[in-house]
């Protein structure tokens, strides 16, 4: 069995989760503080990828990143770089698809934050960055961790947008989900089943991790 799809899926999921961890948290933090109207509008736009079919996300991404489209053409001309059909093209797809998961859970966590902690900290003379990293983030740790794990799991299983942006090339762009589809399509039922089991095992471990995180937090009195 060629393990490339597993490796490829994991590196795509890891990189996009790291990116979305920061982007999601910072947008959640600033949008949670925004005026109501701005918040409402941004919320709709940023949550959209969660409800759109992944093929629609893939289509829209191709509209801008494709070799003949505005951004894609610019990169091709200036850097001789094709943004589609490489293994890392999938990162564009997964980041867009998992962003709402991170953003929404982080925002929920920030909104439940007890602002009196921040006010007290400010009065004690603690800097705003100290307050963010040492008070606000630890307080919201549970929600943020849950969001991160969910985002990672979703990135690992992304199929629609990924297959549109980087297709299926064995040993180059194949991920677990595109491999399963390809194997099933070519009647290689045995191998398809093996990959399905691999995917199930990973999902199982991830969900177990989420549950254990929640339990641990529950015991410590909801810190």
């Amino acid at each position, binding site marked *: 069995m060629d393990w490339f799809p597993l490796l490829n899926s994991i590196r795509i999921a890891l990189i996009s989760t790291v990116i979305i961890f920061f982007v999601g948290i910072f947008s959640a933090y600033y949008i949670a503080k925004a005026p109501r109207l701005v918040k409402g509008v941004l919320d709709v736009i940023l949550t959209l990828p969660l409800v759109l079919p992944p093929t629609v996300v893939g289509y829209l991404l191709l509209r801008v990143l494709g070799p003949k489209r505005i951004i894609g053409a610019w990169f091709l001309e200036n850097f001789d770089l094709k943004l589609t059909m490489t293994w890392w093209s999938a990162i564009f797809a997964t980041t867009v698809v998992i962003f709402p998961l991170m953003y929404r859970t982080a925002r929920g966590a920030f909104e439940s934050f007890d602002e*009196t902690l921040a006010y007290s900290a400010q*009065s004690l003379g603690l800097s705003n960055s100290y307050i963010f990293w*040492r008070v606000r983030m630890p307080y919201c740790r549970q929600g943020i961790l849950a969001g991160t794990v969910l985002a990672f799991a979703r990135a690992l299983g992304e199929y629609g947008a990924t297959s549109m942006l980087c297709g299926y090339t064995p040993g180059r762009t194949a991920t677990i989900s595109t491999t399963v589809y390809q194997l099933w399509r070519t009647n290689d039922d045995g191998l398809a089943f093996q990959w399905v089991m691999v995917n199930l095992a990973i999902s199982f471990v991830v969900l177990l991790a989420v549950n254990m995180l929640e339990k641990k937090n529950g015991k410590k009195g909801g810190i």
Partner: protein
Amino acid sequence: MSLYVDIEKNWGSFHLKVKFEAGDETISLLGASGCGKSLTLKCIAGIETPDKGKIIVDGVTLFDSDKKINLSPQERRTGLMFQNYALFPNMTVLQNIRAGAKREKDAQKRNNMVQSVMESFGLSEFANRYPHQLSGGQQQRVALARILVSSPRILLLDEPFSALDSHLRFKLEREVRHVIREFGKTVVLVSHDRDEVFRMSDSIAVMDAGRIERIGSRGAVFADPQTRKGAILTGCKNVSSIERLENGQLWATDWDMVLTVQNALLDVTAVGVRMKTIRPGPGENGYRCRVVEEIENPFSYTIMLEPLNSKCTVPIGWELLKKDWEILRADEVGIHIPTEAVLLLRDK
């Protein structure tokens, strides 16, 4: 003068407009919830920004809308304590205190400060506990220690005792009074509890709907609250509207009683009588009354009375010791209200 506040702020339909000063003393803002007392405190701490005005603490201008001065909460050095104490839940007691000492840049000095405050507040044995492992009283002690180690110019206490049971509250009030004495500078206390306010403060500002209704020494404010709201907030349960009679007497319309009072100015529109100041037997402003209801308290009775043959719409309450009522108990009793016991109030 260590604190000068003169600010205005519009908050939706709520309009805050307060002006007061205080020396090295404890001043309390007394008011019902939503009167603007906590908002005032937040404006002093720099968490909320007033629309205009001036805030000066210890000669340092914290806020001045004309001169465009608006110090950050960090630069203001106001020791702000919330009702829930706002201890950082992810840090131990020691880490919380250390966080409070961060303004001191010299590590040696900082350690000494932390050490001495841990000892003087008796926190050494809890050093490695987390806030949720402490009782309410211990949490309050940590919060105070954390504030004092940050060397504030002023203490701002927002409802410091309302999260506590009454027996603990009494004990902690004594501790906090001690801390305040040691601190020796201006303390602003926000509370809705008149007894607590009276015990804790030198002066009192009674607030209602974003304004200060009455300000003065605690004795003066309780003896002469001047407004209907002030009377109610300082615990006067009997308040009635009045009509002025030609002979200078006041007719308390709710109780249907005509009262002789000491020089009532023309703007007086209501009177108040504290339940404990009513006296038994004949005398000035004497009435025979029917007992409408007898309410038993742990150590006293509250007797609701209505003058005989009157058009009284709201009975007047009289509180007296159990042993006294047990002697006087009857369906009809004679009472009188000494003229100096009648509080003359404005509505406004």
